[in-house]
């Protein structure tokens, strides 16, 4: 019987992936909030700039998740 699932390194990997998954959800919340604030107040150039930054944040978070699946 293979007990590799119970090895500490495997548990650390799973916990790490769960934490990064929560971070991805958080980045989507940030994006939604930026979008909502952009509708409430229109400051020239701000909305587009922050949306771009938050999208980069989402892409980085998803990339990290995929990277963690492969490398860990």
């Amino acid at each position, binding site marked *: 019987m293979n007990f590799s699932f119970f090895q500490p*390194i495997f548990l*650390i990997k799973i916990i*790490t992936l769960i*934490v*990064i998954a929560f*971070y991805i959800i*958080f*980045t989507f*919340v*940030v994006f939604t*909030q*930026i979008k*909502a*604030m952009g*509708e*409430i*107040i*229109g*400051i*020239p*150039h*701000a909305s587009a*700039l*922050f949306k771009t*930054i*938050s999208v980069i*944040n989402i892409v*980085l*978070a998803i990339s*990290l998740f995929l*990277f*963690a699946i492969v*490398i*860990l």
Partner: protein
Amino acid sequence: MTDIFIAPIKNRHKNRHPIEESHMHILSSFSRNPHGLTFQAQKKDESIILFLRPHYLTNLPWVLLGIFLFFFPLIITQILPMLGIDFFSSNIVAHFITTYAVFYYLIVFSYILINFLTWFYNIFIVTADRIIDIRYSDIVIHNVSETNLHHIEDVRYSQSGVIPTLFNYGNLYAQTAGTTENFEARSIPKPKEATDVIASLIGDE
């Protein structure tokens, strides 16, 4: 009875407040008659007279913490070998270090972004008709309050402490009639000037 004299009705909306216009850039924290700024539920002929957000200096704590957090791993990697701790040669650490390092910097980036957005979207707007207070905190909370200028009974400001006095920022309070929520703009630049503008607008009402 026939009216002898009928006073002309002033069009408040067309009259911008008689203060000079100031150029508003993306990071402005005090702007009079700003150009290009709009807000939700803005009336077609409603002009923005004053735009306020907290003074730049209020960002100092999170900026310093952000800089510290950015350099913290570099400091640790320098200090641990000096103390004789060979932490990074461990197999488990070597296995996870890249992922955790990238994740750590993403969290630091998010910390900076959230604090910046909290400052950026905490806005106090005064128009010819009303004041609008936009509060944004903890990334998931945003609150928009507004009241007509004729509901405001009293407007005052306070500046307490050496740093606010030195850099000319403070709190502005607008007291409204009855049970309506009072308005407060915290740590805004030039609070006296802002109070004077609102007071003169209330006088015009």
